[in-house]
């Protein structure tokens, strides 16, 4: 895109606040849906915004700001999860996670709480359902956030929806089959 070449500098100088703030409500929603914890979600959003500001000038001019921001948030989230695992907290977290989600799952069955069912999906499946289904990201934008080809987005989206459906419908059975 040769026409885009002279613009990076101009765009880099644009006030970050005016461009970022309209996206914060959606970032908070995505973070909350990933973490199921209001305070932790806002911590993640704060880290995301700090990272975005520190890399503001290196932002690609032709890249879409929204996809760029959500990708930063998702990568920070994944890194934090990996770090928690590396610290040896894996077993403990999984146990707590199981018991908690099992309890919530029963409630979810009655209330048809899709949000609680979502919690049992792998991160990538969560992100697919949230970005496409809630944030109205295009498949292409979603592919950019997840760092996968667009065709992969389509096939994995289908699988994520099946998985969510089976959790909502079958509940505990699906929970027991949850082996990664």
């Amino acid at each position, binding site marked *: 895109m040769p026409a885009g070449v002279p613009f990076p500098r101009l765009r880099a100088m644009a006030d*970050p*606040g005016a461009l*970022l*703030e309209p996206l*914060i*409500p*959606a970032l*908070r*929603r995505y973070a*909350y*849906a990933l973490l199921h914890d209001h305070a932790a979600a*806002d911590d993640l*959003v*704060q880290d995301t*915004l*700090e990272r975005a*500001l*520190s890399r503001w000038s290196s932002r690609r001019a032709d890249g879409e700001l929204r996809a760029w921001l959500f990708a930063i948030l998702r990568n920070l989230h994944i890194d934090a999860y990996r770090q928690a695992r590396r610290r040896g907290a894996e077993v403990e977290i999984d146990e707590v996670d199981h018991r908690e989600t099992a309890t919530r799952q029963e409630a979810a069955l009655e209330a*048809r*709480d*899709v*949000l609680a069912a*979502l919690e049992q999906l792998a991160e990538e499946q969560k992100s697919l*359902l*949230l970005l*496409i*289904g*809630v944030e109205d990201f295009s498949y292409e934008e979603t592919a950019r956030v997840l760092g996968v080809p667009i065709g992969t987005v*389509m*096939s994995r*989206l*289908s699988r994520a*929806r099946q998985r*969510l*459906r089976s959790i*909502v*419908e079958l509940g505990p059975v699906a929970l027991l089959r949850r082996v990664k």
Partner: protein
Amino acid sequence: MTGEDVPIGEDELQAFVDERLDGPRRDAVEAHLARHPELRERIAAERRQRASLRAQLQGKAAEPIPARLRIATIQAARRARLARRMSLVAAAVAIFVVGGSVGWFAKGLRPALVAQAPTTAVAQGAAAAYRTFVVEVAHPVEVSVAQETHLLQWLSKRLGHKLEAPDLAPFGYRLMGGRLLPGGSGAAAQLMYEDTAGKRLTLYVRAADGTETAFRFQQDGDAATFAWIDQGFGFAVTAMASREELLPIAEAVYKGLTPKG
């Protein structure tokens, strides 16, 4: 199955769930679902769940943005952090510069520095001070010889040692004045002399431990230093001179400064 049943892709089903299909394809998917009850039920469930997820998360996006997530807040915090880091960098640079210059002086004095003898420390301090101020044209001294009495009283008081300016006229040097410097754990005094050719010589005095009374000679580039310790004080005479030229001056200073008996 009829001939009108156009093949439907999974991607189209997903786009249908997401309400992203337009006119003809949307109609085609709906027709297809009408003929396949099981699939219709699955897609209906997926649409319900999508709508339910959106509804449950709607409130989150409607919340006002917390103050700590405002861009102005984050930018202010970033600037403060940056300023703090810059001052740390400045401090590190200052330490490096000081360390660097000490190293530079030390290098000329001794290639391998081991545990410093007190005389060596005095000689180094003297040489460093000499290097710093002997090149000064505008302010070689803090207090000039015009106020010699005041100068010596001031330096003596700060040093805790009665200081007299030795008369070095026999060697062609006359007193210019002096200044106070940091030296070791306390203060150091530097008296500066100059000959008619503009060559300068300094006498450096500061508190120092040790009982070594022997003269220690050190050469720092062109500058030569004789240092010694006497009664809790270190003395050093530094000049652009050879060892032979400097030794008699150092001896004269030693005799002039040290109380007899």
